[in-house]
């Protein structure tokens, strides 16, 4: 079953075609790494999947359901069941760790008790420890990374997108977090789309890598390792 499908999707920014009639298919449970130089359209692909960006043309399907077509958004971002870890993590600085994680649960009006339980579960899952009542600014880089992961996973999404989330970490921490991501993906079974321009990261994380150039897939490679 295909979890994400692009059919001739194009996106233009200020007169420049960033994504050019891109077609791709990602199966449920796959770990796909989008790889390529800066400005090749990797992050735009993620934003098109989320629905934060509207394509000029082409169709986008999520879980076999049409979510964008003919230059129109048919399913709003919050209706797509997607979690995302942003490049700068985008943790809300005025909220505590707990408030960051439960934001989406609150928006869905999940009762207090259930919400607290899910926050605790996801915090245990990412190994965050006892930092629920501090603000993100008081945490180390690695801890912030775990909060971002916990927030992305709090609603048990079918798809998790990661936009170069490790770029600001040192090498040792990168290796550790990559392992965590692999463990979480195996445990929870979500479809992972990971953007990077780091070749090693692509090799380690992806079951498939797609090399993007000028808004098109230049080459796709199935990795022969399993997690």
């Amino acid at each position, binding site marked *: 079953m295909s979890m994400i499908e692009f059919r001739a999707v194009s996106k233009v*920014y200020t007169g420049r075609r960033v994504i050019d009639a891109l077609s791709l298919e990602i199966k449920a449970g796959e770990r796909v790494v989008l790889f390529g130089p800066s400005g090749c359209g990797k*992050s735009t692909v993620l*934003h098109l999947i*989320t629905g*934060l*960006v509207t394509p000029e043309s082409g169709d986008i399907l999520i879980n076999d359901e049409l979510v964008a077509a003919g230059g129109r*958004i048919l399913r*709003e*971002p*919050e209706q*797509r069941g*997607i*979690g*995302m870890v*942003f*490049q*700068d993590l*985008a*943790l*809300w*600085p*005025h*909220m505590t760790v707990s408030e960051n994680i439960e*934001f*989406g649960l*609150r*928006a*869905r009006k999940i009762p207090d008790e259930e919400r607290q339980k899910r926050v605790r579960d996801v915090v245990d899952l990412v190994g965050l420890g006892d930092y629920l009542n501090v*603000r993100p*600014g008081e945490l180390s880089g690695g801890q912030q990374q775990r909060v971002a992961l916990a*927030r992305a996973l709090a*609603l048990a999404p079918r798809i998790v997108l990661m936009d170069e989330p490790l770029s600001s970490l040192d090498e040792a921490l990168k290796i550790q977090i990559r392992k965590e991501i692999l463990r979480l993906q195996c445990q929870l079974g979500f479809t992972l789309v990971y953007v990077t321009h780091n070749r090693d990261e692509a090799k380690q994380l992806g079951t498939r890598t797609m090399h993007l150039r000028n808004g098109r897939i230049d080459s796709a490679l199935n990795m022969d390792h399993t997690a």
Partner: protein
Amino acid sequence: MEKRLTLATAAALLAVIGLLPVLAMVASSFHISGSFSLKAYQALLASSQQYALLLGRSVLLSFLTSALATVVGVPLGVLVGKSDLPWRGAFAVLFTVPLLIPPYLIAVAWGAIVGKGGWISQAFPSATSDLLSAAFFGLPGCTVVLFTAFMPLVMLLTTTYVGVVNPRWEDAGRLVSRWPHVLRRITLPLITPAILFAAVLVFLLAFGEVGVPTYLRYPVYPLEILTQFAAFYDFGAATAAAIPMLLVTLAILALEYRLLHNPILELRAVMPGATRRQIALGHWRFAVFGTVLGWALLTVVLPLAVLLIQSASPSAYIEAFSRASGSIVRSLAFAVIGATALTLLGFCCGYLIHSRALPLWRSVDALALFLFTLPGIVIGIGLVSLWNTPMTNAIYGSPAILILGYLAQYTVLPMRITSASLDSIPRSLEHAAQLGGASWFMSLNYILLPLAKRGLIAAWLISYVFCLRDIGISMTVYPPGSDTLPVRILTLMANGAPSLIAALCVILIVVTLLPLGVVSFWLRHSARQS
């Protein structure tokens, strides 16, 4: 060295021009006939009930104005700054117009609609029109007029700050919830400091306003100071009465600083590559558009149209020019000179804030903001206290005193605009010039000034508008025979024909808005060509 010396001179100038008059006013309130005395304060306390009542009215008027401006200005700012509302650029310009003209012009226009003998009285039974008229000439009328005049401040600050919230924070929220929830829980809490700052600014501007309460005959505290000074010639009472206003301003600014000095809430610069998202209004788009359009027509277009219709006869304009041509020319001349001086001083202070080249940069910023929020009438009394001496009469008796007043009150405007413009220029450009052996003046001349040109033009224009619309300082210190157009209109209101007053109001609006329109057109044209 030359840089530090120039900046220190500018900081000292601001202190001499702005702070010294305030200190002189405080000192002179304790002196009567050359010796220390508390008589002025004893007299103030003797009439404390009356002063407390006036102060209470001023606080109530300011609070209502500020609350209303915030309740309407914030959603409007979000709509203009973040949504796909049609004509949002035009709405931003339209709603800003009342801020650029003296607020009492709006009161004059509404007076022609709801006042006795106004349009409403001709269309409705006398009981209804009497009720409306009675409400208009009082607290409700003052509140509505000042709200229309100052709401754009809240709207503009909201629009600006929703634009600098890191879009990724909103994106992260949008993945799990709808825009209203994201706005309520993420965007608005993050820009709370800006919203509160705008609310405080509106409160203080309404607090010091004299033109509207004068026209609408609603006695407030600043009017009492003016009465003591201009009608009873009791300078001691006027200075003593000004002190509580000074204290209220200081207290509110201190409270604002204490509440908002929270590093968690400080906004971060937008990540490179992050794209701002627009709120799609969807099927609400045209309903919201209709509401905003209706609101703009009612609060901005209607008052301006009333003034135009009321003055629509050649005789009204002929009389206006014959009775106020001197005031028109003087207003323009003072505004041009004032704006030029403000841009120079504002640039130096703005550079100081931007570069933090001297340790006292924060004090300069705070002083300029404090002087801006101080009621114009208090600054006016301060200028009289300092400069009305035989030795300095050459300045006090000339229009230079008005320019000093403008510099004292409005330096914060060009200063903040300059500082923001310079912040957008990479520091490395100036450093490269320095490494190439350029002096500071050379770097300014060849690097910073050309790059900050648009900001400086904006600073000059805003300064020009605020000098032209000034009433508090001008009314207090204008030398005999040197009144400005806003003062002239206010004095003619007592016995001038409505068509004459309307014509003068239209002239004032045109001379205020025309340069803005011409320069914006020229800037757009040159930007398109380049």
